[in-house]
């Protein structure tokens, strides 16, 4: 017997969210193990004891990978939340206020979108002193634009609907209009947009760190792991890059999956498909 699509989608969503929670927890718990060196077992290829192998300092690659992904998740969560909030406020303000406020906000959006992402992230990260907060600020400040534009367009469209004009002329206050009418209509696109920020944020965090403008080398970040493994790839230690890289790709795919499923669940047009 097959459950209906709504139920399977919901189950898949819960499963993916569970995996992510478990990942961030174990990564946090494994932080000690991840940086513990043991020279008696260095350069081990994958074996039952250490499924992802060990590196040239005998550190367990499974623990390092998990810790790195957990760090990526934290960067992703923070940046997605921050850029989502900025996008919601600025997008709504631009559409609701109109006039010069709209022109100014749209101009800033175009400006930020016009500069290549990676360049801007590196600049902001450097200006904020690198490290965790540098990367987070860099990614958060560059990723709100497309979502803000989406929110602005949506609010502009809602403003023109007869039911919103009707409510306004019936004397419903601005805050009630925002709460009862605008937010429920914005929520699906907004949530999906925020979730889909995650993979972007994680990939950018990893690439900026890989280039050396992000997290410090002592932290087990995915970018650091990949950057270090570069030196050993030519000597045949493939497991140093393969497993962490593969896990990063899987994490990104998982988020894209959640975002897509959420969109299907929340969008009234797609929910009936």
């Amino acid at each position, binding site marked *: 017997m097959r459950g209906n699509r709504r139920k399977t989608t919901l189950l898949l969503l819960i499963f993916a969210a569970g995996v992510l929670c478990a990942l961030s927890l174990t990564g946090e718990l494994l932080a000690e193990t991840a940086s513990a060196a043991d020279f008696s077992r260095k350069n081990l290829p994958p074996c039952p004891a250490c499924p992802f192998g060990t590196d040239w300092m005998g550190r367990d690659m499974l623990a390092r990978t998990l810790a790195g992904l957990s760090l990526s998740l934290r960067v992703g969560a923070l940046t997605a939340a921050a850029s989502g909030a900025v996008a919601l406020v600025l997008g709504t303000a631009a559409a609701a206020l109109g006039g010069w406020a709209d022109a100014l906000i749209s101009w800033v959006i175009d400006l930020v979108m016009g500069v290549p992402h990676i360049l801007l992230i590196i600049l902001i990260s450097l200006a904020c002193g690198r490290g965790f907060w540098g990367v987070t600020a860099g990614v958060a400040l560059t990723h709100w634009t497309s979502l803000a534009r989406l929110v602005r367009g949506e609010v502009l469209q809602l403003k023109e609907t007869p039911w919103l004009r009707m*409510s306004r002329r019936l*004397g*419903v206050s601005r805050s009630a209009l925002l709460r009862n009418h605008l937010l429920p209509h914005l929520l699906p696109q907004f949530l999906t947009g925020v979730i889909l920020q995650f993979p972007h944020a994680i990939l950018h965090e990893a690439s900026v760190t890989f280039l050396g403008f992000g997290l410090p080398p002592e932290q087990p970040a995915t970018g650091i792991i990949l950057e270090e493994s570069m030196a050993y790839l030519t000597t045949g230690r493939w497991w140093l890059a393969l497993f962490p890289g593969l896990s990063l790709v899987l994490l990104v795919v998982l988020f894209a999956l959640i975002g897509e499923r959420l969109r299907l669940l929340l969008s009234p047009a797609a929910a009936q498909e």
Partner: protein
Amino acid sequence: MTLEAKNLTFRYPRQKAGPVLEGISLTLRAGERVGLSAPSGRGKTTLCRLLAGWETPQGGQVLLDGAPLPRRGFCPVQLLWQHPEEAVDPLLRLKTTLYEAGPVDRSALDGLGVRDSWLERYPSELSGGELQRICVARTLRPELKILLCDEASAMLDLVTQARLWRFLLDQAEARQLGLLVVSHDAALLERVCTRVLTWEDIAAPRRA
């Protein structure tokens, strides 16, 4: 209470062609029921939007007792939209929609035949006629002076249409409301209105 439109000119934003409305003037007193009929596309609905304060004209003025319409709070001039399914938020239960701007008179709900069970539902679960009756109920606040009915009964069957108009006429009589009835239905206008205008009566003659 008198609603006055003085020499209105209006064009929609980014519209290339000439204005939709040009030199439109109209006076509507409380207690009066004015019918307006004109061919499609003349701008009847746009005129209603201007009179209800949904849009601001580029030229001319809409005055209620000599003053512009209030920008916030309940507007004493209300518009009954032609498509009731567009006039209610599709994501809200009708209970919320009905009571969001304040209390609604119980007798109005009874008079219109609005059932309590309708209010628990979403707009997509009611028919156009049922929705329109809820829309009428929420505009009938004590502060209401002028009601603009833009083809407000076109989606109803004849029996319901008759009931709705009976109710609206009773209300207009009792509360001395001014009604503007826009319709293609000449028989309806003849039956309901105290005077009937055509587009030529309200539009200034075009300069040659």
